[in-house]
């Protein structure tokens, strides 16, 4: 009799779970977009004889059911927590959790990638800068593994080697080392990027090399208190949102930014982006191929050209005080051949600043 009760109990518990979730999955309206993963969700695939026979319907239906499953984010959190705390795995989908941060494993050094990046930078120099520009600086932005990895038992790339490699391969540049100027607390907990309010030291060091002055009256303002970084969704860990703080001055607020891609003018900080899929794009509108900033408050006609990735977006505003024109180029989205059509390098100062993450996976840079 006792056994019979146990059987019934087992059947009821499992039936409730399977049939309940099944019913919910069927009745739940399909979502369009995953905020946490910052991507569109798969929709019910087209059903036709063709898609049935070639198997497309079945493949896409599985993606659809995975994406639209009820409480999907909660289930993903269950998985992440099981990986870390039940099975003791050090990472989940290559993301690890240490000192309150989520970080992504990135090791070892990808020599092909470094070679590729060095080749691209040399081409840029030879094509546009050689004999024309005033000075060229090169700097590697550390990713947060550089501070979290070793002390928490995670492997990390050989950053000293990376810096040494670019020193050797980019002899035309003055290399600015900034690894000692930041630590893990200067990065968002749930995002890959550094926080603008913590990198004034980096800006000051670069400005010393550029023989330019930093802003003296920077004011901290909060752009949003509801920032979930890119690793938040990927890690599926239940973590609190963070603040995006930005530094501003009346001069920065008066600057005008021309976006060559859209043909529109805007400001240094793009408040519309705070509602978008990646609020970090708030800084200089994020991933944009070519921007030209006009600083009418500058007392000189100096021109600064910055080749950058997303880390450079939050740094660039801090470098603008003494430059009347600042051109910001992202060769992940702009073919180097076209740069000459828009940018005059004569007498300009050039800063090439890239994160170690991009340098170790540089094939995204266009050639």
């Amino acid at each position, binding site marked *: 009799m006792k*056994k019979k*009760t146990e059987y019934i109990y*087992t059947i009821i*518990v499992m039936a409730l779970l399977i*049939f309940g979730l099944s019913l919910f999955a069927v009745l739940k309206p399909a979502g369009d977009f995953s905020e946490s993963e910052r991507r569109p969700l798969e929709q019910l695939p087209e059903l036709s004889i063709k898609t049935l026979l070639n198997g497309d319907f*079945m493949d896409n239906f599985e993606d659809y*059911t995975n994406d639209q*499953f009820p409480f999907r984010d909660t289930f993903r959190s269950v998985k992440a927590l099981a990986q870390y705390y039940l*099975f003791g795995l050090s990472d989940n989908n290559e993301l690890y959790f240490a000192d309150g941060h989520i970080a992504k494993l990135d090791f*070892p050094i990808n020599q092909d990638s470094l070679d590729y990046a060095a080749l691209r930078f040399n081409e840029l120099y030879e094509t546009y800068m050689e004999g024309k520009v005033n000075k060229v600086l090169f700097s590697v932005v550390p990713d947060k593994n550089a501070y979290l990895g070793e002390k928490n038992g995670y492997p990390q790339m050989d950053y000293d080697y990376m810096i040494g490699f670019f020193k050797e391969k980019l002899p035309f540049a003055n290399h600015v080392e900034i690894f000692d100027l930041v630590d893990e607390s200067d990065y968002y907990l749930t995002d890959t990027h550094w926080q603008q309010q913590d990198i004034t030291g980096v800006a000051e060091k670069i400005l010393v090399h550029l023989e330019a002055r930093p802003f003296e009256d920077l004011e901290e303002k909060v752009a949003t208190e509801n920032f979930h970084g890119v690793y938040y969704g990927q890690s599926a860990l239940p973590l609190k949102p963070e603040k995006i703080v930005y530094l501003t001055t009346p001069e920065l607020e008066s600057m005008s930014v021309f976006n060559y891609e859209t043909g529109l003018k805007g400001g240094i900080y793009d408040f519309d982006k705070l509602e978008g899929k990646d609020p970090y794009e708030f800084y200089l509108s994020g991933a944009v191929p070519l921007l030209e900033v006009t600083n009418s408050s500058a007392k000189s006609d100096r021109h600064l050209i910055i080749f950058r990735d997303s880390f450079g977006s939050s740094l660039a505003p801090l470098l603008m005080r003494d430059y009347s024109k600042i051109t910001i180029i992202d060769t992940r989205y702009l073919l180097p051949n076209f740069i000459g059509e828009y940018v005059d390098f004569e007498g300009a100062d050039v800063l090439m600043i890239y994160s170690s993450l991009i340098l170790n996976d540089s094939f995204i840079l266009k050639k």
Partner: protein
Amino acid sequence: MLFSSIPFLYYFLPLVLLTYFAVPKKLKNAVLFAYSLVFYAWGEPVYVFLMAASIISAWGLALLMDGAKTPKMKKILMIISVVISFSFLAYFKYADFFISNFNAATGLSVPLLKIALPVGISFYTFQIASYTIDVYRGDTKANKNILDFGTYVVLFPQLIAGPIVRYVDIADMLKNRTHTLEKTAYGIQRFCIGLGKKVLFANAFGELCSIFRASDEKTVLFYWIYAAAFMLQIYFDFSGYSDMAIGLGRIFGFTFLENFDFPYISKSITEFWRRWHMSLGSWFRDYVYIPLGGNRVSTPRFLFNIFVVWFLTGFWHGADWQFIVWGLFYGTLLVIEKMWLKKHLDKAPAVLRHIYVLFFTAIGFVIFNSVSIGGALEDLKGMFGLAGIPFAGTATLYYLKSYALMFVAGSLLATPAVKTMLKKIDSTEIGGKTFAVLKPLGFAAVLIMVTGYLADGSFNPFLYFRF
């Protein structure tokens, strides 16, 4: 369709259960047959016609065999049926292997057919062949009802990755089977165990194997970690699938024979093969080894029989030389055990015997999981420090540390220790009462965790699909 997928767990399974238990007894096989066809067509929309052809030919020829006037005619019909079944297998699975070897031997360039392998063809071909041979031998009567026979062949719980269910073992159940609370509860539990083995363990070890393959860091230790991870992956993958098949079968009133019995606790290779993929081993024993004369023959003939069986066992797993070498590797070990080593092994301490089995099983599975004979040699050289690589490195030590608990848990679960302990606790009064409450919740927790892994779109291949 994979058992470990959202479409199966939350769309197909609830539908089939609702329909199956809603219809009267006489329609249950029809429901299973129809849903099984959908299940198969989900992954193989076109090959469902191939399977239908196999079913119709085997069913019709078995009926003719039953009515054959002379033993000779019966034999001819049996041979025709077996040849038809195996020619499908030969064409779809082995044609390119023969063509590429023919090209290599002759220097010609006969174009490869490059046909996609119909999922589960190795399993259902062997099931159909066992039926045909059993009817020929008179061990069972030919089934006059094509729906019942079709249900036997396409029964979705074991259709694509076994166990290889013989017709004689479920002939009665096809006609008369009971559905009880006990069977359903057991089936649910067994299914959840298999699902957990597959998604929580096999996939994790599979991911480690993929990391090893993708890593630029190759060290001796990493090769051994890979070997151990693959041993656990293939065990949890395949035995997990068998558990799910057995569990689902039980829910629908079928009792399938066991397919795995903790093979890694074996103390000899002979014992290992009595515990690993038991349905395949017994198939080869009953339909190849014994008809060839088994071991009651002269030594040369015995050796011939053994190597034929192990050549075929390897070849069954894949149309590539590394599978054949893997089969012959085991054939050689079994001959050595039988003719010389067994008497020494029997006297050796148990721990040495376990190490011996695990060592050779690791070697075997490294060969098995290689991409070619050359790849297998590279892997073995790496394992034994003959590849000029360091003993350990950063990535090696990281993954060793990261997967340490998985390895401990996986190794424990690959032995009967946990099962025995839980049974002991269950047999006590307090333990029994506690388990009665906690067990269903535990299985629900497994299902919730598995759903989390599936919703996350985690690494989820099924190794035995390629066979």
